[in-house]
């Protein structure tokens, strides 16, 4: 190892993050991924009611978006739902992933299929199912905020956590079980073993699963529409309704703000995360 490092200098044979061709390929993908986003940001400054032709620079849509109570309300609702749904789905998904990873039990294959159901079902079918369900059990509507969001949140969790479970499960597939056994042999409790041995290994999977759950919830329209009550407009519901006329640059402005906030928060998080504390938990 030491010999190779010294002979090959800074670029080892498996130092893939430094490979130029890999970097170029990823850069190209990012270019494709971000071109529409940049377009959207540009059009948020367009002095026109639609995203079609450039008609001059303006920041008026940012002012309008800021003063648009219903837009901000929709945004707040969406974020609230997404955060709650992400936390619960990640926890539920992780537990199911661990269950499938750790235990042998009867009808396990069938159980795995059962868990995959929400992924398999077409969105509209699930939306209608939720509509029929909530109206038949007489789920109360018109409750004060944030309880009025509970039906939507419940539905979001139901379709998100199996996604999280699959991601975490894929991660756990490579875990060396002997580590766990060793930990127990050394007298660690169930909880200590989980927290000190399994969880650190599992963490990237949990983060990936959580990100997926958040994305799913934030972007969902169909199921949200069918589970929403009379005063629970979410951001996607607003956007889809707007489309009948045209998606206004206000929405582009609001989306741009979301992008900027995320970027700023990432930078801040990076600043806080000193290089030597990377493994802290």
């Amino acid at each position, binding site marked *: 190892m030491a010999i190779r490092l010294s002979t090959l200098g800074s670029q080892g044979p498996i130092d893939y993050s430094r490979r130029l061709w890999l970097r170029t390929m990823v850069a190209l*993908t*990012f270019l494709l991924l971000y071109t529409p986003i940049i377009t959207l940001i540009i059009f948020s400054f367009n002095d026109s009611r639609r995203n079609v032709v450039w008609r001059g620079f303006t920041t008026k849509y940012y002012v309008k978006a800021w003063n648009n109570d219903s837009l901000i309300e929709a945004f707040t609702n969406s974020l609230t739902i997404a955060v709650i749904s992400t936390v619960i789905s990640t926890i539920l998904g992780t537990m199911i992933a661990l269950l499938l990873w750790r235990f042998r039990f009867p009808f396990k294959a069938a159980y795995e299929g059962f868990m995959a159901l929400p992924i398999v079902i*077409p969105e509209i079918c699930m939306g209608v199912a939720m509509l029929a369900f909530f109206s038949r059990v007489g789920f109360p509507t018109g409750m004060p905020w944030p309880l009025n969001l509970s039906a939507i949140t419940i539905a979001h969790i139901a379709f998100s956590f199996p996604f999280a479970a699959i991601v975490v499960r894929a991660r756990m*597939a*490579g875990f060396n079980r002997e580590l766990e056994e060793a930990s127990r042999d050394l007298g660690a409790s169930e909880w200590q073993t989980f927290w000190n041995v399994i969880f650190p290994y599992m963490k990237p*999977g949990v983060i990936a699963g959580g990100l997926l759950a958040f994305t799913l919830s934030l972007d969902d329209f169909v199921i949200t529409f069918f589970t929403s009550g009379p005063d629970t407009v979410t951001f996607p519901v607003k956007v889809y309704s707007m489309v009948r006329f045209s998606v206004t640059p206000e929405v582009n402005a609001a*989306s741009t703000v979301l992008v900027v906030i995320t970027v700023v928060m990432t930078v801040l998080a990076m600043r806080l995360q000193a290089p030597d504390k*990377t493994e802290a938990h």
Partner: protein
Amino acid sequence: MESWRDNRFVFWVFALPGTLWLLVFFIAPLAIIWALSFGEQVDLVNVEVTGTLQQYARALTDPVYIQIIWKSIWISALATFLCLVIAYPIAFLISFASTRWKTVLLVAVILPFWINLLIRTYALIAVFRTRGFANFGLEWLYTTAQLDHVFGPFEPLPLLYNNFAVIAGLIYVFMPFMVLPLYASVERLDKSFLEASLDLGASQVRTFFSVTVPLTMPGIVSGIILVFIPCLGSFLTPDLLGGTNAQMIGNVIERQFKAANNWPFGAALSFLLMYATFGALALRAAFAGRKQGMEV
């Protein structure tokens, strides 16, 4: 793997919350729709569940639905495959990056997906259309390279309203579903295996296909499942980006629940799609089970 009997308490703690949630808030609602698929629409609002199989018969006997399902399958398969090819390098780069860059790259991959799907799709249209940025860029390259003197003036490429656009759109929409499980799986790759393979004289390519790919197979399979299946049911992307024959099975299902107001038929189509997917998953499970058996 231990038997559930060895540690019943832990087993139930892990199993109960998720299972109950799914049973109450997913299976119960779905059961209503499943029942509907054996019914018929008697008037505008009421469906009578008569146990009839006519909805399934309609879906399976009219060749047009089989044709649409078949088309949905190959479009989804192609999109999934391309997604895998594009996502793998990204996941690889993220996994091998330093911790700081890992965060940045992960967020960079996921960020576009926090913008509403519809808005993103409209932005994609603005890029791809005849007078969009993609064509402007290509035209600039074309004229800069003086090709217009050789081949005549630049003809904008028809990037929208065809199957190409649908596949590109699906890749664009489902990219994180592939990147995230791949990342979670590549990240745990024991780098010493790669070094060993290279030390033993295998080429980078051989190492990739004989060591890296098999070791990250769980991530690949998860990614394929998470992309392929939602692709099958998607309707917005073919609707907005596809041409006059872009309709996929998701569109037909959506129409049954909405414009056609025929929930039983929509339910039957949805469940047919589900049975097919489960058939495929069961095959995979059987295959994986056999392999696992051999390892043990």
